[in-house]
Each structure stands twice: as structure tokens, then as C-alpha cells.
């Protein structure tokens, strides 16, 4: 039993899932679901399809090089069964998975970090340029700040009393 990778989206294909297509040159393409299979039949390049892992890795959206990937390399030589080895491997898989997902999340976080400063600059610029949309120029002359003047609304006591009765 082997957990394969989908050729198109690089997700894991567990046993019992997906379709395996064998081309006449004996190259095997495994697909996790019909979505990937249909995209393959349409001759789409996974490196250009935004939701695939191939695209994300190519465009630096996801982590590419890390030591945790070394553990998942395909090994074609079967290991002799050893209970201790199997037990340790299962434990290791859990911790390595945790480490890897933590590092991937960090990578995405650092990628998204620089946006705040840019957003601030954009907001300041917009405020400077389009303040006339919300504040009249005459008012702006008197009060040069970008805050809007406070408007006081009078609520009569009789109306407030009526409202609960209407409901």
C-alpha cells in the first residue's frame, strides 16, 4: 500500500481513491479526483492553474525548500519489518507534520506581512485627496484636521416613549 501524490494538484491520494491513467509510453498519471483528471484531459498545465501546489511553489506562495521535505522522499526499497522502527516512524510522522505545517504557516505570514504599511500609506493618501467628499471645503478651511465635525441630533422624549408601544 502506498500513499501517492496527485499529478495535477499534488495532494495525497489514499488507497481506494482516484484514477490512474497509464499512457502508452508507460508513464503513470495519478489523480486524486475527477477535477484534476478533467483538467489533465483539457491539457492544462498545472504550473499555470492557480489552486495547484505546483503553481504555489513556483510562484513562491508556499514553502519550497525545507529539511522536513527530506523525510517524505520516495523510497523504493522496502524496509524489513521491525516493530520498533514502525512505532518510531509513526511518532516521527506526527511531529514532523506539526513542524512542517508550523513552518508553512510562518512562511505565508511573512509573505503577507508588508501589506500593513502600504495600506496605511494608501489610506493617508486617500484621506488627503478625497476629504472633500465628506467634509465641505468651507468647514475644512476653519478646521484643518481630517476629522469630521460632531453633529448633535435632538431626540424628543415623546417619540422615545411612543416607539416601544408601536412595537
Amino acid at each position: 500500500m502506498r500513499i501517492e501524490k496527485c499529478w495535477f494538484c499534488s495532494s495525497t491520494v489514499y488507497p481506494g481513491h482516484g484514477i490512474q491513467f497509464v499512457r502508452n509510453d508507460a508513464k503513470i498519471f495519478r489523480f486524486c479526483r475527477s477535477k484534476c483528471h478533467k483538467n489533465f484531459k483539457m491539457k492544462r498545465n498545472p504550473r499555470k492553474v492557480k489552486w495547484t501546489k505546483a503553481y504555489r511553489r513556483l510562484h513562491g506562495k508556499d514553502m519550497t525548500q525545507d529539511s522536513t521535505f527530506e523525510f517524505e522522499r520516495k523510497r523504493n526499497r522496502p524496509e524489513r519489518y521491525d516493530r520498533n522502527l514502525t512505532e518510531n516512524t509513526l511518532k516521527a510522522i506526527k511531529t514532523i507534520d506539526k513542524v512542517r505545517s508550523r513552518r508553512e504557516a510562518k512562511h505565508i505570514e511573512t509573505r503577507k506581512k508588508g501589506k500593513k504599511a502600504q495600506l496605511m500609506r494608501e489610506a493617508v493618501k486617500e484621506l488627503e485627496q478625497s476629504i472633500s467628499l465628506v467634509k465641505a471645503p468651507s468647514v475644512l478651511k476653519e478646521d484643518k484636521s481630517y476629522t469630521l465635525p460632531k453633529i448633535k441630533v435632538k431626540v424628543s422624549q415623546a417619540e422615545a416613549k411612543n416607539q416601544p408601544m408601536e412595537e
Partner: protein
Amino acid sequence: MAASLASKWSRVGRSFLGGLDHKLSGFLSTSHEACSNSFSQQRSTFIQMRTVLKVVDNSGAKKVMCIQALKGKKGARLGDTIVASVKEAHPNGKVKKGKVVYGVVVRAAMQRGRCDGSEVKFDDNVVVLVDKQGQPIGTRVFGPIPHELRKKKHVKILTLAKHIA
């Protein structure tokens, strides 16, 4: 164009057994969609009468037309044997054109379920010619061969294979 194709297929459907009609009508419905987009995706089905298959051994035949699918009401699948008529052959080969032969389907475009739950499909419909006992006539086979043949007791073909899918 779609209409003319559809009428041709309906004529073909009427001339053959009524049992095959539902499958051909399935063909019709898919063909309507197929003609509309540029990538015509025909849904792969069973190998039945009149199916032309490629021959992938060195027995001399090149193309073979299925006459009968032994076993299977709807048709033959991957690993089944068929009775076929040789339509195209190499000039000097063991089989000649027009001969009626048996063949084992080694690659089928229709997906076949494996015992682990996954499905395999190949690029084309391909056959290896055998004699009545099931021994291959040729001495070489080309291309990938699925290991489904082992269960069907076509071990000889597997031994000749270069690549087992």
C-alpha cells in the same frame, strides 16, 4: 454537423442488436456535447462487436475488429478474451488478413477497478492475439501491460511484457 453525425449513429444503432441500443444512445448524448467543444471527449465503453483494436505483438496483424466478446453481456473489458477478425496485417506475418483469431485485451480506454479500490485506464484499446488455449501467438508484446492479466491466468503475456503497469 452534430445532427448528421447523430443520424449516422442512430442508423448504426438500429442495424445492430437492440441490447446495444441503450449504450449507443448513451454515445449519442455524449456525442452531442462532444461536438460542441473543441476537445471531443468520447466516454470510453466496453469492447463490443465492430470495435477496432490495435494489435500490440509481433504476430503479424496490425488492426483487428472484434466479432464477439466472450463472457460479458455488454462487451469485453480489460483482461477479457475476444474473437476478432484481422482487418490489417503485415505482409509476411503469421496471421493474414481476414483470419478469425482470439485475442486478449491488454489495454482498454475504459477504466477497470482494482482490488484496492482505485481505477486504471489506458490510452487506447489494444489486444494481443492468442490461440484457443490462451497462449500468445507472437513472441513479443509492446507497451505497458496491466497486472490484471495475472489473475486471468495470462501469465505468458506478462512474461513477454517490457513494462507492467
